[in-house]
């Protein structure tokens, strides 16, 4: 999970939810607007840098997607490049085998991430929440958070050094005639490898948001369950999980939006070792075809479709969440 993405998306959503005007503020509409500005100017000012950042780095670059419809060359300006209509989308609608391979890999990895990686922080948070000793909890949390602050380059290098074919274990095993572990550079084990890397690196960090939600639970609720004779499982099922359900749904929706984005850095760093068949995903495909091969237009087209699909998924998932009575990512009321 990427908390920064969450923050960036959640912030405008929060702004977009107009707080019901306090009853005392019943004034003419025009005045109300000005009055609120005068009341909230400081808060708005605080939000301004964030808004600028989002506009500058998230909305303005969207205009660059226009090259998906152009024969863009790096030495031409975007305006000079000739229009080519949907020519760049041919790999998608004609089903270029390399594109289809990348799409399949992406979907498989994404599915695994949702099924295997996504629940891990929840389980971990529940586990941490059940720890009684505040000291132990803090130590465990720190240890779990730590890998998040390592860049993928370091994580991949650590895995390589420890488990690589000439890494610590295998070198030792070779010298002692023990069985070797062919984990890294093994196309068949690529999925389990990147999945375990992702869990090792980010599961601990992912617990933060769930722990925060759990800490808000009124202790009286637990007491009530206890009074009614419910054990730990009952407390978990009837109090803790419902308390974090909206957060889980929110994160799941955001995750769906990312369904076609599966960790560019992690994969490109390990791509050469297992070959493109096993490891090419949409992000690396866009990079390899766009940056390396110089097909910027085609890469932008694939990226654009990816973005549109992601947006569609987020909206659809949000709609479903609403149908189930969840607040979802944003709500109209």
């Amino acid at each position, binding site marked *: 999970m990427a908390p920064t993405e969450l923050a960036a998306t959640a912030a405008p959503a929060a702004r977009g939810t107009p707080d019901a005007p306090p009853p005392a503020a019943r004034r003419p509409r025009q005045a109300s607007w000005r009055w609120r500005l005068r009341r909230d100017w400081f808060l708005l000012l605080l939000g301004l840098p964030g808004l600028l950042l989002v506009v500058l780095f998230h909305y303005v670059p969207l205009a660059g997607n226009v090259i998906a419809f152009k024969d863009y060359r790096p030495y031409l300006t975007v305006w000079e490049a000739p229009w080519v209509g949907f020519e760049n989308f041919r790999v998608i609608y004609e089903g270029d085998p390399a594109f289809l391979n990348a799409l399949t890999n992406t979907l498989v990895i994404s599915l695994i991430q949702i099924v295997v990686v996504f629940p891990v922080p929840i389980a971990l948070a529940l586990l941490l929440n059940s720890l009684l000793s505040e000291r132990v909890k803090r130590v465990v949390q720190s240890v779990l958070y730590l890998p998040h602050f390592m860049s993928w380059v370091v994580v991949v290098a650590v895995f390589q050094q420890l488990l690589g074919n000439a890494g610590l274990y295998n070198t030792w095993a070779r010298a002692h005639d023990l069985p070797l572990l062919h984990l890294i550079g093994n196309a068949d084990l690529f999925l389990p490898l990147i999945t375990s890397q992702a869990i090792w690196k980010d599961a601990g960090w992912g617990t933060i948001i769930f722990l925060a939600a759990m800490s808000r639970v009124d202790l009286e609720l637990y007491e009530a369950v206890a009074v009614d004779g419910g054990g730990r499982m009952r407390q978990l099922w009837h109090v803790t999980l419902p308390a974090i359900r909206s957060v889980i749904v929110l994160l799941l929706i955001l995750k769906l939006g990312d369904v076609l984005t599966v960790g560019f850095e992690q994969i490109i760093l390990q791509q050469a070792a297992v070959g493109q068949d096993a490891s090419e995903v949409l992000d690396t495909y866009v990079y390899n075809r766009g940056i390396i091969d110089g097909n*910027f237009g085609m890469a932008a087209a694939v990226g654009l479709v990816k973005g549109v699909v992601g947006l569609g998924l987020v909206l659809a998932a949000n709609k479903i969440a609403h149908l189930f009575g969840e607040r979802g990512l944003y709500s109209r009321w």
Partner: protein
Amino acid sequence: MRNPPLSRRRFLAMTGGAAALAAGSGLLAACGGSTAPRTGGAGSVAMPDYVPTTLVTPDLPATADGVMAGFYRYPANPATAFTTKPGEGAGTVSILTNILNPVPPSAGANAYWQELHNRLGATLDITMTPQADYLSKLSTVIASGDLPDLTLISARLAHKADVLTRLCADLSEFLGGSAVRQYPFLASIPTDAWLPTAYGGGIFAVPIPRAVVGTIMFTRTDLVRARGLDPEPASYADFLAVAKGLTDARGNRWAFGSVKGVITFVGTMLGVPNVWREEGGRFTSEHETEERKEAIARTARMFADGLFHPDTMGGRLQGRDLFGNGTLAFNPDGYAAWDTLAKTYPVEVGATVAPKADGGGTARHRAGTTAFAITAIKKTDKSRIEQLLRICDWLAAPLGTSEYMFRKFGVEGTHYTMEDGAPVLTDKGKVEVKLPLEYVVDAPHVLGPGDRARVDAQRAYQEKVVPTILRNPAEGLYSATATDKAGELSKIIDTAELDIVSGRKPIGHWDEAVAAWRTAGGDAARAEYEKALADKA
């Protein structure tokens, strides 16, 4: 209008067109000083005059077929070639280039870098990118539209011709023909090296020249001998026996660590052409030959036999370090690495000459590219270009000048001391004198100066190999497709090679890859080369 010395010029039809017509327009370009880039169609350009430097006399003179000159000793009193600071008034000069060694301390904490600024009279703002990531970095910088003053353009850059002609300054008026004599050290770069800088009737970069000898299969001769193996294999079977004899997985040693290098070396034994084979005006790519396929198949068998370092496929092995510490017994690398390896590691560095696969003498070795890469100047005004070229000239000052000594070794007393007439880097020098200046512009290489035995060994290797040298018939011809799609085309081939050698795909996959390569631009490149050759004749 002055009549240019035609005889000293080399007119080249870069993109086709009748030779006479091409020569004519080249004349115009040189005399008129036209800077307008003309892409496509017939174009020609007067290549810079070649005026070899006469500052020093080598102990072993260079030969006509390309064996490098050799020096046993450093010239006693290096001349100071520049009386003024070449970069005076240039302010900050931004540079993007690659680096092959650890990044040196930044300018603020690097006395060598500061002294460099002082001697140049300009500030060099150098962005150093590891070589493995250079192409991505370069492509990104170009797409950003913000080119530095001097940019190393790698051969595999997509749309290279257009990037050069549209974003970079046409240097013909400054360097074409006799104009280059204003920059005497750029003039001492051989004409062959300038070929890859000429596009559409202009010169768009300064080359980093390389000798014809190219890639060498460096060998830990000490290990070979310690195991009682033959350091001079006479056939493929012999070579395989040496590789097998050297490999000792339990002892953490393998013969090879580079798939590409071994395929090329085995290919050399089998007689694979150097990129292209030309017969009667028809071009055949090396990839289309049976020999190349056989080379891949044999390499795959070596891989299956465990002769490769187990992490070879990741492509991120530090080949030189692993060679130095004995993990790898063979390490193919550019010829210039010979000195680097010998100076960095306390081991015996040798080189294996490729025999013909079935025995019967030395195989024909592939000529190296005439330039490592080329350095282009961003489009800017005339006086700025002249300033930057003066800095380039300074960077190309050869052995025998104090500028060269400073560039390579820093300040005497601080970064190096003279011992027995040779500079020895101090600890400070080893850390600080690591700026990749040789990947901006450099003087043509020579052997040594150095240890007599090493210079002799290098010279002996070259004397054996250079007479067999196999040139790329497409060198000097221009193909837009081959230039612009170099990266994409190589990627198809490289991916397939790795897939096959690693055992992920059978050797039959090679035919599919070659078909994909032909469709992606291989056939178009062939047609363009054939046309360029026909037009030239």
